[in-house]
């Protein structure tokens, strides 16, 4: 699965994207965040304040309770600040 990071999430994790094999037990976006946090302190730092992390599956906004199902691409980013 392709995972993308933007803005300070990207900076904290130290990469803009990666391709990862997700264990079957990881069902939801929230599960994925918990699993990513086991990968190292940079992930823990990025996801420390989960309420401020927005997520998108296949380029559509989703909340953390959303099932991953057929996701090809998941992105994590702070609240948007364009305009």
């Amino acid at each position, binding site marked *: 699965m392709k995972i993308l990071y933007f803005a300070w999430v990207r900076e904290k994790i130290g990469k803009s994207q990666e391709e990862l094999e997700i264990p079957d037990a990881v069902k939801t976006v929230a599960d994925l965040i918990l699993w990513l946090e086991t990968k190292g302190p940079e992930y823990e730092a990025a996801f420390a304040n989960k309420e401020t992390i927005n997520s998108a599956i296949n380029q559509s*906004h989703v909340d953390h309770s959303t099932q991953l199902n057929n996701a090809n691409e998941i992105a994590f980013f702070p609240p948007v600040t364009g305009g």
Partner: protein
Amino acid sequence: MTIRIQTEDFDITKEINLLKEERKKSGQQDVGAIVTFTGTVRDMAGKTPINSMSLEHYPGMTEKELTDIAEEANKRWPLLGTTIIHRIGDLEPGDNIVLVVTLSSHRHAAFEAADFLMDFLKSKAPFWKKEQPLEGEANWVDARDSDKQALSRWEK
């Protein structure tokens, strides 16, 4: 409907004329009201003087979100043309950031749709601003609660 993400600046008159020309091809000149919103870079973030700003976005999702927002506006109001242009990359105080243009036969539709487009763009379109103060570290701009609250005005 025009959606563009670009590093270069835009010219408001030119963008309006493009929409008017496109509409004129329909054989009608039924545009009576044109509203534009332009967002520009300010030189202060609260009490901190700003030297420059850089804008990051999520290629692919940005275009998708902006298209969705423009389509929703076209469902809600009888628009005769819609343009959204958002710049990315490095910008300085005074520079243009975003342009929204709405064409309609009547002014209230054009005003409301432009206002709606900006509220949704601010809360939904995946752009992030990083400000470089005159002194010290660059930092990511925080989202505003007021922008989230602005959305509730449009609940049906």
